[in-house]
């Protein structure tokens, strides 16, 4: 009897935690996209006004941010510094695959990869224009992610708790 109760509690707790984990991922995505947008804004000024080399600009533009996005930009900078033959796009792709805390999905990753393709290869004005465009695209994706968050985060919490309870009821 006690063993059954213990098992039931463990199943409910694990179901609940899975639900909350998914809900947190939902909440985290728009936050990370917003951080990327602010980093790109900062990178734009580091490119156009300060004219820093790309690796240093990538490190400096993350000032004030924290978490996975900071890790992503810093990893890109480290890869660029360490491997001079790599293009920014390849470095960014490698950094995306190495940063495990990122909860970004396909649309924003595609935008980021295209953002890497035009970094450091054109004039400063062109890069500024291009970064503006990337920021706009990311802002649209952020809007969609916010809508998805409002819809899904509550649903994931409910489904986690109720899924755990349903499994317990079926197994008892």
């Amino acid at each position: 009897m006690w063993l059954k109760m213990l098992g039931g509690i463990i199943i409910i707790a694990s179901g609940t935690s899975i639900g909350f984990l998914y809900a947190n991922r939902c909440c985290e995505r728009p936050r990370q996209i917003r951080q990327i947008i602010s980093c790109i804004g900062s990178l734009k000024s580091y490119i156009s006004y300060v004219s820093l080399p790309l690796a240093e600009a990538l490190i400096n533009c993350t000032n004030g941010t924290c978490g996975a996005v900071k890790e992503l930009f810093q990893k890109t900078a480290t890869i660029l510094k360490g491997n001079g033959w790599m293009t920014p796009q390849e470095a960014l792709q490698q950094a995306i695959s190495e940063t495990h805390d990122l909860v970004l999905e396909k649309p924003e990753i595609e935008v980021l990869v295209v953002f890497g393709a035009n970094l450091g290869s054109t004039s400063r004005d062109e890069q500024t224009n291009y970064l503006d465009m990337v920021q706009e695209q990311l802002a649209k994706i952020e809007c969609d992610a916010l809508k998805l968050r409002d819809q899904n985060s509550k649903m994931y919490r409910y489904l986690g708790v109720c899924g755990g309870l349903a499994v317990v009821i079926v197994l008892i």
Partner: protein
Amino acid sequence: MGLDLLFKIAGVGILVSVFHTALKQAGKEDMAHLCTLAGFTIVLFWVVQLLGRLFSTVQDVFKLF
């Protein structure tokens, strides 16, 4: 068996209704209907076993073969 199964069916019913409401609010009506169908199938599975027992008991009582 006893009342246990009745309570289990009631529990599944309550949970399925919560599932349905949560999924419908999230705009996933198809998943909500799928979930209701899954709950119905689980309950039907339990009830069919009992019905089978009922029929075999009736056969035994009336000596039907």
